[in-house]
């Protein structure tokens, strides 16, 4: 079936107005030998059939509705209040485009302005853009900002090995051929070391230092000393932060960060097998002209009403073309809206409650699992809602066993860090009950004995 609302009679009348006899005549510029190929695709189905087929495909997955999950590593299972999706389903929001015509797009514009405000409140920064594709690409855009800020004269970027392995991979992809030297991007580095260890890598040629907070292993380090060291060399510092943790922790802004980015998925966005998510990006006011992405600013219309527009657009690719900091065009509009609705409805007390529940439950889990014979906690630093567990057997084997009990185990750190063979990264959120954690402990104990 199609969604074309034109009857054969109307079509013929339109062809007559155009002055051709058939639709095929409209395609005479297309080389004849390649025109009208036979596409080998399955026969079209009706909506009723499609709904059933998609149901079947979806049932081919074991979802977190069926499994108890302790998997995190950059994507987190949080409760999403019902109101979030009800707002997202408004056609006025999801079937609109980028607000190029502000007179008829104030809904989107004000929502983005509020999103920017919420992100600055959470991160302790001065400005936020309208978002990037995800946490990983937001980190890569931080490199672009720093590179542009120093006009290409500083070519070194220091990145902590405790930054998400996939984020580091994306930075490597984005910077290939730019003549940027990545330092610290070494999975064999001493992982016990705190952020200060990176200080030795920062030199006068360093444009940016990138750390994660809490880091990929869930640890909370105070980065203030490193930030001071980096600033002394004139480098900028980017902190990739978990937004839920920021309800509890000192803001990166307070700690002196120049750029704060992160994965916004925990803020009301479904896991959706990895996307679409939300890359948030905040910085200091002095860097706003080098920041990529859409930006909404407050103004007035010609009727004296407060209103919002896309502003500083001359920074962007459609005007600056090859001289723009980034090629980014759209943002993650609807995902930014989801996070804003989430933050609005959970609010000050709700977000703090979520963060505390994550903290307490993760600590209960760590304490319980760390005491199991054969298991131990890998790091001693304070942590938020994720921790590394040293296991007596390969993580894959343990996870297979857990799955038989309906439990989705943690992330196998050995696949990224050779020194962390048989180490599992476990995430605990408000979605996990004490019973879930005890059940996990029970199965793990069994695995150890078996």
């Amino acid at each position, binding site marked *: 079936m199609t*969604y*074309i*609302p034109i009857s054969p009679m109307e*079509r013929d009348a*339109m062809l007559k107005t155009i002055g051709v006899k058939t*639709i095929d005549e409209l*395609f005479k510029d297309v*080389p004849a030998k390649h*025109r009208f190929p036979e596409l080998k*695709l399955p026969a*079209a189905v009706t909506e009723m059939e*499609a709904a059933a087929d*998609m149901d079947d495909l*979806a*049932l081919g997955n*074991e979802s*977190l509705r069926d499994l108890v999950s302790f*998997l995190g590593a950059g*994507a987190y299972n949080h409760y999403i209040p019902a109101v979030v999706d009800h707002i997202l389903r408004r*056609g006025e929001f*999801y*079937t*609109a*485009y*980028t607000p190029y*015509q502000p007179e008829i797009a*104030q*809904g989107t514009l*004000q929502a983005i302005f509020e999103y920017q405000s919420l992100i*600055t409140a*959470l991160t302790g920064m001065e400005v936020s853009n309208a978002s990037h594709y*995800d946490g990983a*690409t937001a980190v890569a855009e931080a490199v672009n900002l720093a590179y542009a800020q120093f006009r290409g004269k500083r070519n070194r970027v220091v990145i902590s090995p405790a930054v*998400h392995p996939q*984020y580091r991979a*994306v930075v490597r*992809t984005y910077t290939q051929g*730019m003549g940027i030297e990545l330092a610290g991007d070494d999975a064999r580095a001493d992982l016990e070391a705190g952020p200060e260890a990176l200080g030795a890598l920062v030199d006068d040629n360093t444009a940016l230092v990138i750390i994660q907070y809490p880091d990929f292993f869930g640890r909370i380090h*105070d980065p203030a000393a490193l930030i001071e060291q980096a600033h002394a060399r004139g480098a900028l510092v980017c902190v990739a932060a978990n937004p839920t943790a920021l309800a509890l922790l*000192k803001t990166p802004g307070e700690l002196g960060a120049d750029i704060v980015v992160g994965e916004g998925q925990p803020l009301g966005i479904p*896991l959706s097998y990895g*996307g*679409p998510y939300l890359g948030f990006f905040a910085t200091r006011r002095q860097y706003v002209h080098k920041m990529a992405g859409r930006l*909404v600013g407050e*103004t007035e*219309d010609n*009727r*004296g*009403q407060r*209103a919002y527009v896309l502003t*500083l657009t001359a920074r962007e690719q459609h005007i600056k*073309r*090859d001289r723009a900091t980034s090629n*980014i065009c759209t*943002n993650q509009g609807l995902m930014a809206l989801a996070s*804003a609705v989430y933050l*609005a*409805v959970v609010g000050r007390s709700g977000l703090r409650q*979520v963060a505390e529940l994550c903290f307490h439950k993760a600590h*209960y889990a760590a304490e319980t699992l760390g005491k199991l014979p054969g298991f131990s906690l890998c790091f001693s630093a304070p942590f938020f809602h994720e921790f590394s567990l040293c296991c007596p057997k390969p993580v894959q084997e343990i996870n297979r066993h857990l799955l038989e009990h309906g439990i989705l185990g943690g992330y196998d750190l050995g696949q990224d860090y050779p020194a962390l063979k048989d180490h599992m990264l476990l995430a605990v959120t408000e979605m996990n009950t004490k019973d879930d954690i005890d059940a996990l402990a029970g199965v793990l104990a069994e695995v150890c004995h078996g």
Partner: protein
Amino acid sequence: MAKIIEPTLFELSSPGRTGVTFPQSDVPPASLPENLLRGILPLPELAEVDVVRHYMRLSGFNYSVDAGFYPLGSCTMKYNPKINEDTARLPGFAATHPLQPIETVQGNLVMMYTLQEWLKEIAGFAAVSLQPAAGAHGELTGVLMMRAYHHSRGDAKRKKMLIPDSAHGTNPASSGMIGLDIVQIPSDARGNVDLASLRSACDDSVVGLMLTNPNTLGLFDEHVEEVIRIVHECGGLVYGDGANLNALLGIVRPGDLGIDLMHFNLHKTFSTPHGGGGPGSGPVGAAAHLVDFLPAPIVGIVEEGTSETPPLYGFIDPAHSIGRVKAFHGHVGMIVRAFTYIAMHGADGLRQIAEYAVLNANYLLARLRATFPVPYDRICMHEFVAEGRLAGTDIRALDIAKRLMDYDFHPPTNYFPLIVHEALMIEPTETENKATLDAFAEALIKIAAEARTEPQLLHEAPHKTPFGRMDDVKAARELVLCCWLPPQDGK
């Protein structure tokens, strides 16, 4: 003081209100690391009803495809089928974690593999990666692949990217971002790539050409095969910007024309919603010689099936991959929607999409060419570009665009492409009926008459929208980019 039409979330906040509460903790409390804790968390405090009413009022200020005709050229603002919204939210898709063992997500992987296969078939490529998050992201992926391809052949001297003057800004921005030099290629009098200029720009320093075909004038290049041959002869590659693929579904496969690699825009061609500016989805297809450079990973069969068991789908890293371009596997939520859409269309349905998109554009062109100048006037594809100026008036494209809002239409794209003065770029898409197209044409004809009789009406438009023209200078000069809680609420 400007009049406040809708307060911000922060202005609506009232201390002590809450929208959601969570269950009490069922574990013993751990001690929080006091030295690492923040002070006040300055988020708003609202009840659920406050939040719903706020966003409902905001939604009322938006124009949308669900509300009316949105002929925004180059954006393919087609109707977004509702079933897609339902399928993407099935818990089996929406509640799966990206790092689950592949054995537990075969539904996702089969779907992704199948969509890769379908996109290959639709556009004539040897492989597809679903990872890029948007069109511009697909372009970045593409230019990185082009350079990696040349380097793999020991050819590191190629630094020039050729880009027609009608191209989207993202083309030069994507190439500039990875340090390539841009050479702009002019268009000829019929809106094609100028062959003589192209020939003289082609040498052994060329990485390739970024070609949008049909181009942003809505025209199918009359010498497309010649253009591609010239670039290939100097050792360059041809990147296809798939922004305008809607015109080509079932009409011609870019891969068959010799395009080496291309991004798809699932949010244009395959009906995933634009979301107020994202999320998009920009898979990249590659011909055989570029398959090994695709971003890692792509979905493949990791264990062949037998007569009893289905094959096992998983992830495969292409041999010389440029690497990862984002975390995880792409915008899967968008992939589910596009999959649903293609499944419901089949080959014939896809061809009809292109046919009616092109029919609608040519119909509007036929109805409007007597009123507005059309600088490259020939049979168009899915869109066309008129000039928003009228002899004997000082009316500009901007005035026409704003006045259209009073007739309850979204304006076309204006001031793009850059090679047309006062451009009005009109893309009706296939999902509009004749009555809508007629009403739109009549509104534009009426506006042209108003331009002569009551030009003020246009200069001051819009009049009937909830907001009037904006002070862009104030926004940029004062640069108020966020708001915070009012002072009476703590600090």
